[in-house]
């Protein structure tokens, strides 16, 4: 399959998702306005803030206009790449999201990576000896991981590694507060530190990342390992694996090249879904570790009825979902060349 053709198809796929994104945009806009709670009153909470201040804030937030007008204004703003201004941080929502998205992505991707490199082997091992002690062990581990909420495992990890043992750095933010930050090129600290060759900084950022990434990973190892196991079982019992075995191919080559490669498609699908949900759902981990990501930002905004950031966040999540689905489809093509993006 030609690489160019894939790009064109991917572009078409992106275009066709625009109506869905538009729907998300309008729906979130209306939903925010239906929710009870007047943001103007909330933000005018200083001592002595009276009617005048409330009106002032209402005007600043554009809430003094009728809702259809607000919607039109909002759509035209979004069309020009302006997602409005957050009352909480006082900054443009696009700026806030641009600064915070890399933090969330870095954390989520690391967590997903940890989850995948633990879950896939676990699933494979469990599938090789179904019903054995190992299989039960994996099941136990997965159950433990999934039944302990991320903030509990996060707090536990902090308690053990930071509070009791003093091994981990203090669990606040992406890098030691006294360290200096690299110039922001990609927003991914691990990459930015490498780009300027600051290995000490890289190490600091890496240490800071370990605990939150593990507590997030623990939660998603279960679905990934279970899917790998189920899919491997099917694959191992299929004709082509039996054939491979019967012609005397090595065990490694049978399991990895034939069975796993065929079993990996559902894992990729699930990994895509897991990634998108993690990105939005890691709010608790972000809170526990004071991680300056988008999810905790959106939650604070929601509690404060700060419309613009919530709308911006939902739009961002929808876009990420579209892109992740696309990436999953492309990976499908790599894992199984018979699959093409349509």
């Amino acid at each position, binding site marked *: 399959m030609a690489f160019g053709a894939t790009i064109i198809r991917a572009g078409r796929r992106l275009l066709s998702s625009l109506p869905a994104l538009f729907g998300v945009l309008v729906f979130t806009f209306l939903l925010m306005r239906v929710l009870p709670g007047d943001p103007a009153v909330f933000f005018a909470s200083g*001592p002595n803030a009276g009617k005048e201040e409330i009106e002032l804030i209402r005007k600043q937030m554009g809430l003094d206009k009728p809702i259809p007008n607000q919607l039109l204004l909002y759509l035209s703003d979004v069309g020009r790449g302006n997602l409005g201004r957050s009352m909480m*941080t006082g900054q443009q929502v696009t700026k806030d999201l641009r600064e915070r998205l890399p933090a969330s992505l870095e954390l989520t991707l690391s967590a997903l990576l940890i989850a995948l490199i633990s879950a896939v*082997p676990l699933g494979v091992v469990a599938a090789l000896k179904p019903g054995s002690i190992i299989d039960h062990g994996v099941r136990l581990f997965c159950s433990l991981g999934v039944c302990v909420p991320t903030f509990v495992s996060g707090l536990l990890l902090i*308690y053990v590694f930071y509070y009791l043992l003093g091994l981990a750095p203090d669990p606040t933010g992406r890098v030691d*507060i006294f360290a200096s930050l690299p110039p922001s090129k990609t927003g991914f600290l691990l990459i930015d530190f490498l780009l300027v060759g600051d290995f000490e900084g890289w*190490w600091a950022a890496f240490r800071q990342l370990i605990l939150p990434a593990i507590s997030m990973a623990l939660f998603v190892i279960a679905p990934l390992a279970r899917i790998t196991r189920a899919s491997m079982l099917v694959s191992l019992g299929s004709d082509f694996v039996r054939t491979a075995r019967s012609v005397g191919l090595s065990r490694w080559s049978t399991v990895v090249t034939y069975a796993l490669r065929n079993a990996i498609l559902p894992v990729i699908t699930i990994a895509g879904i897991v990634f998108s949900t993690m990105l939005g759902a890691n709010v608790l981990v972000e809170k526990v570790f004071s991680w300056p990501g988008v999810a905790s930002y959106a939650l*604070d905004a929601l509690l404060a009825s700060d419309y613009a950031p919530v709308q911006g966040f939902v739009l961002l999540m929808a876009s990420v979902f579209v892109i992740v689905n696309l990436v999953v489809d492309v990976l499908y093509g790599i894992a199984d060349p018979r699959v093409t993006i349509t």
Partner: protein
Amino acid sequence: MSFIQSKRLLWIAAALVVSVAATPSHAQSRAETLRYITGASVNTLDPNIPGSTREAFAVSLSTYDRLVSFGRKQLNGKWVFDLDTITGELAESYDISPDGLKITLRLRKDAKFQDGTPVTADDVKWSLDRAVTAPVLGKAQLLTGSLTSADQFKVIDPLTIEITLPKPDKLALPNLATVYPIIINSKVAKANATAEDPWATAWLKEHTAGSGAYVIETFKPGEQVIMKRNEAWNRGTTDKAAFFKRVIIQSVPEPSTRANLVERGDADIVVDLQASDVQALEAKGTLRVISTPQYNSVTFVSMNNRIPPFDNVNVRRAIAYALPYDAMFKAALFGRGAPLFGATWADGKPPSGAYPIPQPVKLDLDKAREYLKAAGLPEGFSTTFSFNVGQASTAEPMAALVKESLDKIGIKVDIQKLPDAQMSTQINEKKLPFFTEGIVAWLPSTDYFYRNFYTGNQRWNYSSIDNAELTAVAQEARFESDKAKYEEDGKKLNAIHFSEMPQVMLWQPAQDAVMASSIQGYTYQFHRQVDYRDLSRK
């Protein structure tokens, strides 16, 4: 379990051990740096912006000077701000004319803005004009000190400014010490003003142009602010620059993490821990815990005096005798604070004209039943009790106890936990019948409390009380210069409050400042934040 898994764990453990072995390279700078952690965040550098947080106030107190500031005094062995002592900050001295209508302030000759230019009376005039004219929060605050118009501020010479008052107002000068009337470098601000924004509100939100003890180094709204010392600033209590070279203000949303950080010595000071954590840390005895009752604040159970059945004074009294005060105080605050219940008033009259004073109420279900009967509701009634999510850690156990206790006299309570924005909206619209809230006054004088929280139709009149006598006395007391008469007015107001029982005062929660034992100089401030300029390290 899997070999791979255990190997990975081993590797991580090894990595962590190595990382500890490497000594931290920032050890020297630690002693000269103050790291303050908080659950909230700094969202603007100009405290005047609507929506600004208390953390933002603390930052602006360090980056800007005001004309005057509050002194401090000891209250039960702890330092607290002193409303009655006003000292100069940018002003070297001040005079109040005998008729009380003119305040003349003389500026320090050596005061300079952070860009090196001298602070002049023109800058002061521009800043005060801005505070009363621009669409900023200062406007409503300064109004309480009869400061309403730019005509009241007059430049006499480059170092002297005169403020004219329509009436002698004892809150005029204290108002200048609050967080809003910051003195801004007017040349810098004007250079960044636009036609639509002549007071540079947009620019000042993200930049500072002050003369304060600290200069902003980095500002990440919602995450952290780092400030470095202004070496030229000499307006500290001992005429010196501030002690700490750098101050880091960092948002750490998880309360238990804040407790861990300060316990392990990674953070220097924190004021918003959970009461249970404070108690545990205090018991360990390695940290300094300074617990000051917030003497300018009150937590209460409020009843909407216009919604039946709370429009009946006997119902309100019944509630006052049916609240399980001691249990609530223990469950919500672990007993940390100053109770405002269980007092005995000799001959049934208020012993003092101060606000708030402990009320002569305690849990007495028989008395509560009598009042319910007098109200014509012997069987009780049903209502809702609301609190906001932001206060859940203290209000939730309280609400459960209220429900349980009122149930015994036939009042069925449905607990409502509302998101903060929804709660403030409903309070503003006067729709909640029965709820808990807290109030704070920066200038805690009796008349100020009564005027702001018990009169008019504004939002802060939580109980929606409309009592002609109370309103009249509170207004009169505002301009009362005779101390004895003022005390009498205060007693009158307290007596009306007790007999009308618009809402039930519960307690003044403690402000628990937990700090490393090396930190000194902490003073409880009117804005309930840390004034970084007060602190030093032994």
